[in-house]
């Protein structure tokens, strides 16, 4: 199993698309830092202002959540669809004929890259967000005090979002279609569905991936986790959100394994 993981790590780090996706984590996190500080400001004489409230401080520290929400699923998709796109699955299955091991190795590697992505966004916050906040008059320790409340949720969210992408990549072999399904589906379609369900049926579609992920991540996701969740929208509890996100990853992964992944490689 360790050998399979090693091989998957080599594959991931030798795919340019993975590095491009990964690198986008930094500027995306900086953009959200900018948005958080702008949101704290916005009154006469202050376009940007330091974060004060608990919610704002957590949003600043967890500014990378949005990057993880967008990019971690893509990492998961690339991990598996890259094989179909370049027909390397044949070699993979010859080298590791027990296919469940291949999939488990991909789960492990996707989780690792997702964690690295989350850590990269924290680096962006540390490098840009905290100094900027301090320059605006904020107290850095008041933000870093929230590490325990923010970072575990960010890391677990990133892992589950990566798994979500891997699941859809396993199910939908076409790379573009899988990316559109995961990103377009969660960021665009989900927002529309949530808004419609709320307006027409007065029902909170809080078990869809984006909303479930927001529940797991807590305060860091509420401001910038996608549109369509207006006032009065009830998120699941964090642990319910985590379980639902896990299901969003595992269900397509399982279906994909028993269908696409186990099919004849002709």
């Amino acid at each position, binding site marked *: 199993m360790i050998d399979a993981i090693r091989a998957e790590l*080599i594959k991931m780090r030798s795919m340019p698309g993975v590095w491009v996706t990964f690198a986008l984590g930094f500027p995306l996190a900086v953009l959200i830092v900018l948005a958080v500080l702008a949101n704290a400001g916005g009154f006469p004489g202050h376009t940007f202002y330091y974060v004060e409230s608990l919610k704002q401080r957590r949003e600043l520290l967890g500014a990378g959540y949005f990057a993880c929400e967008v990019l971690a699923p893509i990492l998961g998709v690339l991990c598996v669809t890259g094989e179909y796109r370049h*027909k390397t699955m044949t*070699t993979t299955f010859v080298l590791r004929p027990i296919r469940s091991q291949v999939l488990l190795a991909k789960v492990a590697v996707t989780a690792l890259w997702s964690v690295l992505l989350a850590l990269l966004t924290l680096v962006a916050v540390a490098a840009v967000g905290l100094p900027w906040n301090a320059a605006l008059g904020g107290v850095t320790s008041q933000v870093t005090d929230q590490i325990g409340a923010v970072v575990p949720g960010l890391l677990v969210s990133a892992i589950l979002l990566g798994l979500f992408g891997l699941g859809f990549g396993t199910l939908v072999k076409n790379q573009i279609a899988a990316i559109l399904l995961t990103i377009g589906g969660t960021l665009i379609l989900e927002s529309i569905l949530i808004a419609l369900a709320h307006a027409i049926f007065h029902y909170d579609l809080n078990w869809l991936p984006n909303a479930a992920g927001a529940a797991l991540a807590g305060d860091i996701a509420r401001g910038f986790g996608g549109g369509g969740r207006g006032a009065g929208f009830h998120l699941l509890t964090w642990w319910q959100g985590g379980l639902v996100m896990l299901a969003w990853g595992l269900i397509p992964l399982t279906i994909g394994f028993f269908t696409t992944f186990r099919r004849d*490689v002709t």
Partner: protein
Amino acid sequence: MTAGAPSRGLPIEFSGLSKHFGTVRAVDDLSFTVQPGRVTGFLGPNGSGKTTTLRMLLGLVHPSAGTATIGGQAYQELPNPTSTVGAVLEATSFHPARRARTHVRMAAAAGGHDPKRADEVLELVGLSADAKRKVGGFSMGMRQRLELATALVGDPDVLILDEPSNGLDPQGIAWLRDFMRYLAGEGRTVLVSSHLLAEMAQTIDDAVIVSFGQLKAHGTLEQITAGMTSMVMRARTPEADRLTGVLDGAHISYRRLSNEEVAMDGVTPEQVGPLLATNQIVLYELTQEGADLERVFLSLTSGLGFGEVGHGNDGSPPPDAGGTGGTSEAAPAQ
């Protein structure tokens, strides 16, 4: 057979192997054994089921029936698959942005082998100088070599190669031929599929010929070609029409090659000579064609069998057409 070759290979056994894709029988009840220390050619026209058979052997395609084993075990059950079997399947199975060395290192990692092995096998296939180049810029021949390096990373006892000559230049083909001979000389089992018969005839010890998914012949190259020797006679005559009439009457199969030429299949000079003399047919030339792998192959894979190629009117077998095919193992498997 390479004399005195150390026995490090394993036999490959196919037993009643079948694969149906809907109503199409890609592979139909295929049974044969590939012996270690020999280069075995797996020959058949395009679409004859060669690749599907090899993929079933490697666990990539699930058989509809039957088994394919290596040393008595299915590929998925081998404790160290890459140390036992190396496979060259398709030269396009590379990520174009991956460097050659990275690709082989990935394969080494997957099989639990020393990463240094990557450089060794790249040198073995003559790609050391290109190890740091991205595979996207490789020629087809270089990709074939890289695929071979990947297959060799575990120093396997069994080599399975699917159309490895595709895209190789003459030098590459000669190199591959020597390389396969070298591997078999070490006692390894080498199974190579191809439709390049002239090339295969210079390389292989044994041949397995398939057509429409069915086994047509299996044996040593000598046994298979011997089965065809003395069975093809070519006559050049100004009375070709009358000759074919005589052949129809004698139930001998034939092919009209030109206005003056007729090829008679499944007959010996002793059979055809008296027949032509009795019917007083003028002959300019009567030759017994030398049998070669290509002729056997074409005869066996044309959809008809020995003695049936281009048969005259009623399709019944020619006299004494059977019984010249060697042993049952080496003979056409009909």
